[in-house]
């Protein structure tokens, strides 16, 4: 059996403060079930506030779901414990900042220790990551002094240190220049081909279309459509992913109104 990650009926309820001291409960994620298998890139698409980030946070066990479960299967072993699941995940988002007062090398050494790696093993791993992401020139500089692109590469190196089987990236290319995003996309492709599980969210439709094996469209915390890019295009009769997305969202909104 291939490695896989499965979420069942995930719900996350937030209590929102509205005007006049009234509180309302909002389901940011409202009963999502999702399964990703090894060698597959699954893209989560959705407008702002659709629940992408909350979903990915629950999948990576940063956030406890109000209800529902997440489990992973690695080498035919089922894992449900949050701490154990975290061992197999490399999670990256715009909110996972790095310790500015550390150098990238120090950061990686600390992380390696947390993941229980021996020092010699860690040093070898750091050397190889450094080469893959070509960080030689800045690996010993303090992170607060790095440029945006360099920081992003340092962030990716953080996700690589423990050789995870699962990557969960929340808008990894947001705000990056073409070269930097290309490097990240290249990285994801390579990891997929190496049999990793990749789950990622983005706003960029074209990027999702040519990168993802499967797309999941979210709206108001629910999956409104799911499938390969070709299948979605066929279903809506649109040619570009952008139009597919708009059509599906509008269709959903109309359905809700009736």
């Amino acid at each position, binding site marked *: 059996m291939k490695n896989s990650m499965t979420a069942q009926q995930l719900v996350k309820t*937030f*209590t929102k*403060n509205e005007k006049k*001291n009234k*509180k309302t409960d909002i389901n940011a994620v409202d009963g999502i079930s999702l399964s990703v298998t090894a060698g597959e890139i699954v893209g989560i698409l959705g407008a702002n506030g659709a629940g992408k980030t909350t979903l990915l*946070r629950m999948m*990576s066990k*940063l*956030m*406890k779901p109000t209800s529902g479960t997440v489990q992973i299967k690695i080498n035919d072993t089922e894992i449900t414990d949050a*701490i*154990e699941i*975290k*061992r197999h*995940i*490399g*999670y990256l*988002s715009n*909110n*996972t*900042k*790095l*310790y*500015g*007062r*550390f150098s990238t090398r*120090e950061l990686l050494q*600390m*992380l390696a*220790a*947390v*993941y229980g790696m021996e020092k010699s093993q860690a040093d070898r791993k750091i050397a190889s990551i450094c080469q893959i992401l070509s960080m030689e020139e800045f690996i010993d500089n303090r992170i607060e002094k790095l440029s945006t692109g360099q920081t992003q590469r340092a962030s990716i190196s*953080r996700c690589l240190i423990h050789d995870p089987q699962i990557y969960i990236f929340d808008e990894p290319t947001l705000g990056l220049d073409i070269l930097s995003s290309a490097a990240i996309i290249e990285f994801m492709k390579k990891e997929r081909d190496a049999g990793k599980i990749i789950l990622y969210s983005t706003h960029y439709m074209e990027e999702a279309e040519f990168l993802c094996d499967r797309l999941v469209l979210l709206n108001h915390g629910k999956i409104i459509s799911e499938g390969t890019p070709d299948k979605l295009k066929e279903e809506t009769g649109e040619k570009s992913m952008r139009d597919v997305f708009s059509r599906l969202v509008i269709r959903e909104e109309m359905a809700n109104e009736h």
Partner: protein
Amino acid sequence: MNTKMIKILMKKELLDVFRDKKTVIMMLVIPVILYPAIFIGALQVSAAISSRMDERTYKIAVCAEDDNALYHRLLLEKSSASPENMTDVSESNVDDETADESYNLEIINAEKITDYAAALENGEIDAYITGAPNDGKMCYDIYYLSSEANSEHAKGIILKIFEEYAKELTKDKLDALGLDAHAILAPVSFEEKDTASSEQSLGSILGAILPFMLVISLLMGTMYPAIDTTAGERERGTLETMLTLPITNRELIVSKFLTVAAIGIISAFMNILSMGGIAFYMYKLVDMQTDVQALDVTKFLPAIFVGILAVLAFSLLISAATMCVTSFAKSYKEANNYITPLMLVVMLTGYIGFIPDVELTPTMAMMLVANICLLIKNMLVFKIDYMTVAIVLLSNIAYAVFAILFLSRIYDSESILFGDAKSGFQLFERRSNLKKGGVPAMSDVWLVIALTIVLVIYAGSMLQLKFGLAGVLGTQLILLSVPLFLVIYTKKDIVQTYGFKKAGASSYIGGLFLAVGMFLLNIVLSSWMVALFPESAANVTDTFSELMDGNFLFVLFVIAAAPAICEEMLFRGLIFHSMKARYRASTAMVCTAVIFGIYHMSLVKLPATSLLGFILCYAVWMTDSIYPAMMMHFINNAFSVILSMYGDKFANTVFYKDELMLSDILLLAGAGLICLSIGSAILTKTRKENALERKRK
């Protein structure tokens, strides 16, 4: 919890904090450079001021109807400032000590000035003297401005001159009568000799400043790392990164706590070394000028050892306290705001250590901050009582552990991180947002317990000292009102929270048996504790019997009725019911009983009060109502009141004996246990019947 993981995380936290310039400055630069600089600077400034004061010429106006006798005397004094005349004066003086001093005075004749007060005000003169004969002797008034340092100094000089002047006059009169002036004016000779060893003197100097400085420096030392590792980490966005790692919440918080405590300890030791250095320097300065015994530093070893333990225990406490405060903050700035009140509280309570005559009693030993100050102060003057040392250290560690457990409970990184953050306390929520009904949440209950106990310790003991019995009533009102405020503010169900439910007659009968049983057992327990700690027990009895002095009905009301209502409502009502809603009934009973025992703040009474608390909880649980427990509490306390007010009538019965015989103990314990079993059996039966009835309905 994995210690290896905590070590790794601690290493990371330490590295992170040490690369923060603010912390390093707080920790190193201030103690190592600033303190000595301030100290030596202050020393030089004060030396400069005092030498300027000595060199200054003070202008004094004299207007006295004494044929210029004083005027001439002052002129003589002025001329005595020159070295040649000094010996002359000292010979003519009875007391030759004052002759060492010289004053620069300018005596202004009265005619030159019209308005003395105005001249004094605008600094033309530093003081003026008026004098008129009254009852056959001269009465002088010395006018000066206490708000002006120069005028104050001038007054001091004048007073000294007057003293000498008076002596001279006496001597002259005695000489005129042909008596031996020296024998009459100095019939005995005396000299002061300080028997305090030089270690004791140094200790008392250190004891006056060191404890407070230590407390403040520990607070300052932990403040920045506490903010940096909690609010700072959240503000910089690295907390979410930490959460992607396979570590538990508790590992995270404990590693942060240990880091903060470690930095606090390092900064405290930097402070101690720096202050110790200054003190030693100061001592050496005195040492070189005067001839005192050589210092035996080894005598300070116990003080140093206990001091180090105290710093360790206190740094745990203060780190936990600062982290409790800063963890709620979303940013550095917010955390800074939160920490200011904490700082004030710490400084004010630390100040208690400065009040003379405040002794380190066992109760005081449990008072936060003040106990550490007093302990170090006592150790430095070699008042060493290892029992008290143990209480102080243990209470600090206990409070710290409590704070950390509390913190790791409420520090749910998820809610703190993802903005879902409620404070965790309904007390801090807007009232309109709260839902009606139910019992209070444990976080609120803990906060109220802490607040109430602190209030009772400080305000309650004040009231008790000042108003005696009426003050005890005040304490009870605190116990009643603070929790009641919580219940009302958070819109909880009063009936459910306090257990205000009807109970049948059999519940009261069962309760009666329980009350008698627990009273008998308590006599046995108390006699054991008295045998174990005779001195503390005598202390307790003393304060108790002092209170009992008064009208019987009033005493009964304050000591028996008020606690039966107020203490029951807090402990068996709010605390027990809130705990029962969350934990198993047995856990809730034990916890409530222990808190009830601790609240009485007496080691001697702890077993008895805890047992009392437990049995009262049991009654509430079995009867589903608080009323039987209130009755039981009243009976128990009423017994005590009767025994201590009319003890002589029970003399030599098992109730009122100095020492219990084995047969007495067996009798009391046997009877007590039988009563408890009967009571328990009745309550069990009632409970079953009630349950059946409820089913039928």
